[in-house]
């Protein structure tokens, strides 16, 4: 009896499926639960990869529920690449549709923040501009310029208090209150750091990321928040090595 890899794989991810015929214990008996070693290795190793990726989701739903959730996720979304550091990208969509979690509207955005932190950790290094470069550029020219942001920078905009939820679970922060929050993930050197953006900050960064000029980013931020504070935002970016170039507007 020939056991091809399609047969092997089909039995691997379905615990209720029959084990393939044609596998033995080496001494003539059917392999039986020896096959389950592989079933177990696959399920456990992928569950562990998800636990590493989503520590806050795990705390929010509890360890037992997370294992159930991971078991459903890995069967619906097995990895499409050998890079476990990027496994789980479909988690926000999955959480929004998964029956036991779909009423928890904030979970997908918390998962997006966790993915953003992990992406930031593995993103390319890039040298920041000189801290004085913004002051030494003539104001008119600066307003018409684009600002390139570091490859390790990520923006997560949410109608939920995602930063507070992250901080409460990972850094002993205060109990979250029901606010919309925009979070910037920045990596000053090697450790990604989520930073809660002040009013207008989300619109500002989003506009810069689109490649628009600084003046347009300021307009977008001011439309969003009348008290938008440009120098505060630039201090956040410069202080965390997040601006990598001042460019000419297209």
């Amino acid at each position, binding site marked *: *009896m*020939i*056991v*091809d*890899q*399609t047969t*092997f*794989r089909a039995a*691997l*991810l379905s615990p209720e499926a029959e084990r393939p015929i*044609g*596998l*033995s*214990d*080496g*001494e003539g*008996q059917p*392999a*039986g*639960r*020896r*096959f389950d*070693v*592989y079933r177990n*290795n*696959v399920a456990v*190793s*992928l569950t562990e*990869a998800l636990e590493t990726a989503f520590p806050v989701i795990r705390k929010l739903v509890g360890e037992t529920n997370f294992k159930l959730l991971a078991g459903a996720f890995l069967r619906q979304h*097995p*990895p*499409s*690449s*050998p*890079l*476990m*550091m990027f496994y789980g990208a479909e988690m926000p969509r999955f959480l929004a549709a998964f029956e036991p979690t779909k009423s928890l509207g904030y979970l997908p955005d918390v998962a997006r923040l966790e993915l953003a932190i992990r992406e*930031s*950790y*593995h*993103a*390319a*290094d890039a040298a920041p501009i000189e801290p004085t470069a913004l002051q030494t550029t003539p104001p008119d020219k600066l307003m018409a310029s684009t600002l390139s942001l570091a*490859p*390790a920078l990520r923006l997560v905009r949410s109608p939920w208090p995602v930063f507070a939820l992250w901080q409460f679970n990972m850094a002993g922060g205060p109990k979250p209150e029901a606010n919309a929050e925009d979070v910037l993930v920045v*990596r000053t050197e*090697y*450790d990604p750091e989520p930073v809660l953006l002040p009013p207008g900050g989300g619109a500002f960064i989003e506009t810069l990321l689109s490649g628009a000029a600084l003046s347009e980013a300021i307009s977008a931020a001011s439309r969003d928040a009348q008290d938008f504070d440009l120098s505060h935002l630039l201090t956040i970016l410069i202080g965390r090595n997040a601006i990598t170039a001042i460019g000419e507007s297209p």
Partner: protein
Amino acid sequence: MLDASSHPFDRLPNTPGVGYKPQHFSDLLENPGSVGWLEIHAENYMGDGGRPIAQLRHLSERFAMSVHGVGLSIGGEGRLDPDHLARLKNLVGWLKPASFSEHLAWSTHDTEFLNDLLPLPYTDETLTRVADHIDEVQEVVGRRMLLENPSSYLAFDESTYEETDFLREIAKRTGCGLLLDVNNVFVSATNLGTDTISYIDAFPMDLVGEIHLAGHDEDHDDHGRPLLIDSHGREVAEPVWALYDYVIKAAGPRPSLIEWDNDVPDWPILEAEAARAARILETVG
């Protein structure tokens, strides 16, 4: 085969090495003890930058490095993933490791990566397929690789080759070397009721460029027979040390790796395992 270059780490030394874990970064630089080289899992260093890559650059100035792939699926029925081959070529290209190895196993089916080293039968058909894949890997990556013997929990009725003959024939066709995992030999022999010494005596030792040692867990099958699991989560077992001693006395000293990937211990415990391997290596110095 590659000529020796001027790079100081163009081959692994015949000393103990350890599988690198980031929590041991400072310990390794300050107090490496008997550890002369490091092995990394290739897939953990395929990001674009950040701390993993920075640490690797730093360590590679001090230690000879071995790149050990766990995701290429050389035994897979489908073609090798060209994107993954390109990532491997890139890593090996900039790191210039002293050694590059992969497994006699499959892990990818269609586009799905199953994150385990899955077994294959030993037949003429699988031999041709594995040899073709190794030819392709060595061609793309631009260097000779070592192929590792698997740990087996079951056997395929369709197999027509002994594992040692299968590995020898692959090496003959492709020019690849072999990585002898002594714990895998012990695990497979226990699980399949075969003899470890006969396996070692039949293994083409002249092709062995590296040895692996690791801990295993004990379970039982449906009939109460021992079923050992290659878990990499504890000390190397006593009978595996005895088998390693036999291998080293038969084959002479080889670069010997302690693999400890789960429940990773504090540095002194891992270093003590390496020191034990060093004492065995010194008996044949």
